[in-house]
């Protein structure tokens, strides 16, 4: 008992009582990880109360708050930054009824310090930590905590030499960001080794907080769009049915003006859907990459089940898989609608094509008629041509007859008319031989 008491007080300074993990996402163009001053840390330092003392401004930022020590370290991950606050407390001893200290059991100054973090995180994890001596003690402490706090456990498992239990949130996602409360019990005997192992494990949890926070935010931002897709899909389906009804009428009943307005409307919806589908597909790819990262973390933990509890990995992965599947489902729905619209566009185009073909057949028929009329006219002209030529030949012959037989010029001219006609036919044939 004496030995235990001493060991626990020795480890009290090395092993944190609570770890507060909070993650923020920045716009990529604004995120400058190499910049020395950190606005969040500066904000915390500016809001420190009188009984707080800065021990070190170097990384990790270390602040003493009454009898507690808070170490704040930051972990960057792509476009997000996660702050891990380790609260070391000497409050914990064996007389304490509950082995795990909750946030509410810490001093108000610590709460004030944690409240100084900006209010727009993507995730906020609270891990109540404990250095136990083996699995049996961990179970016993866990059971005691559940018994006293009456907080149900969602999942639990053994990962990286720690017993990790995730508690059920009172109101899931009420604040708009991802929240997790967990109990973390080290199974390592050596205090130094346990502290080092905890540090590594918490770093993994910080990456997990960043990945799940980003996925959760993406899902929340798109949830309203998923809802809109559902209602607009119905509406667009009805419009497609209307237009299909119009287009299935006999071709002569569909007016070119109607086809034109249908083509404009369908093209507009189609191009809008194309943009939405490709944006949704981009989000789906991003969500899948987050899920891959989450899976990677759980795979590296190689989590072992704890009797009666589902493992953290199975529960958490299935939650996030559900989110990622929503993106995929919506991409499929949009794609199906896009295919329908594409088919409708093809039908309208075919209709326009048929109408154009009909117009050109009519035009061809008209051209043929016009051509026949022109041929007829030409034949008439040719006949007239014979008469004109014959008239001139007769007139020339009359001039000749007047000089050689003046008295019988009229008789000779009349007699000559058939000859003139024959000559005119001969001349016409001679002239048109080339045609």
């Amino acid at each position: 008992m004496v030995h235990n008491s001493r060991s626990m007080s020795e480890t009290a300074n090395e092993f944190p009582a609570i770890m507060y993990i909070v993650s923020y996402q920045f716009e990529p163009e604004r995120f400058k990880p190499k910049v020395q001053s950190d606005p969040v840390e500066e904000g915390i330092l500016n809001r420190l109360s009188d009984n707080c003392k800065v021990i070190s401004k170097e990384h990790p930022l270390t602040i003493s708050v009454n009898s507690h020590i808070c170490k704040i370290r930051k972990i960057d991950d792509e476009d997000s930054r996660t702050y891990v606050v380790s609260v070391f407390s000497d409050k914990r001893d064996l007389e304490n009824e509950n082995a795990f200290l909750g946030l509410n059991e810490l001093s108000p100054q610590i709460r004030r310090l944690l409240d100084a973090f900006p209010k727009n995180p993507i995730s906020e994890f609270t891990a109540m930590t404990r250095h136990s001596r083996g699995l049996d003690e961990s179970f016993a402490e866990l059971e005691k905590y559940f018994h006293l706090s009456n907080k149900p456990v969602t999942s639990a498992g053994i990962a990286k030499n720690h017993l990790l239990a995730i508690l059920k949130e009172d109101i899931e996602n009420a604040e708009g960001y991802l929240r997790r409360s967990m109990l973390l019990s080290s199974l390592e005997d050596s205090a130094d080794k346990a502290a080092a192992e905890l540090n590594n494990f918490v770093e993994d949890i910080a990456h997990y907080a960043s990945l799940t926070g980003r996925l959760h935010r993406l899902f929340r931002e798109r949830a309203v769009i998923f809802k809109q897709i559902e209602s607009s899909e119905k509406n667009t389906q009805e419009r497609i049915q209307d237009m299909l009804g119009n287009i299935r009428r006999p071709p002569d009943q569909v007016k070119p003006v109607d086809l034109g307005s249908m083509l404009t409307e369908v093209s507009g919806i189609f191009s809008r859907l194309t943009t939405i589908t490709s944006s949704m597909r981009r989000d789906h790819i991003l969500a899948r990459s987050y899920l891959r990262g989450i899976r990677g973390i759980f795979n590296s933990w190689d989590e072992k089940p704890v009797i009666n509890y589902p493992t953290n990995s199975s529960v958490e992965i299935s939650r996030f898989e559900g989110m990622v599947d929503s993106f995929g489902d919506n991409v499929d729905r949009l794609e199906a609608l896009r295919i329908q619209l594409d088919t409708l566009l093809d039908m309208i185009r075919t209709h326009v094509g048929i109408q154009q073909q009909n117009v050109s057949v009519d035009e061809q028929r008209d051209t043929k008629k016009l051509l026949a009329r022109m041929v007829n006219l030409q034949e008439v002209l040719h006949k007239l041509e014979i008469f004109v030529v014959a008239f001139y030949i007769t007139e020339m012959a009359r001039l000749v007859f007047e000089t050689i037989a003046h008295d019988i010029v009229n008789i000779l001219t009349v007699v000559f008319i058939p000859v003139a006609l024959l000559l005119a036919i001969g001349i016409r044939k001679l002239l048109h031989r080339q045609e």
Partner: protein
Amino acid sequence: MLTREEWGEYAKKFYKDYKDKPEGEAKDFAYQQGKAFARTLIERMGIEGDDVKAIAAVLGAVLKYEPTAKVEIHGDKVHLINEGFCPVMETSLALNLPWEKMCKIMGWPFFLGLAHAVNPEAVFIAPEELKWRLKGDPYCFHIFEIRRK
């Protein structure tokens, strides 16, 4: 008469310029843009009067390329109903902008500006109070009203 490309560019620039500025400033800019846009249209199209018909004509011209937008006159009110896939949603999704904010600080003040260019007494009731696709409604419903004194 904004084409899809012009609209996308406008929304992107607007958000970039105003995301960090006070909401009132952003709304005022969008409102003034709507007013200026409507005045140009009124002049170009020869729209006359300050009644609901003139408001409807301006809205009809602005939403010319919007296939599912319906502008209807009901007494002293103009109903603008836009169903199907929302253009603000499309732009917000494509450019990763917040949809709700885009409606509130850009879309609605712009519409109010359009109506006020015709009649400064016109009242605008936003979809938030009626039907709004962001809430999951199948269409967005806007009312422009000229209240009789």
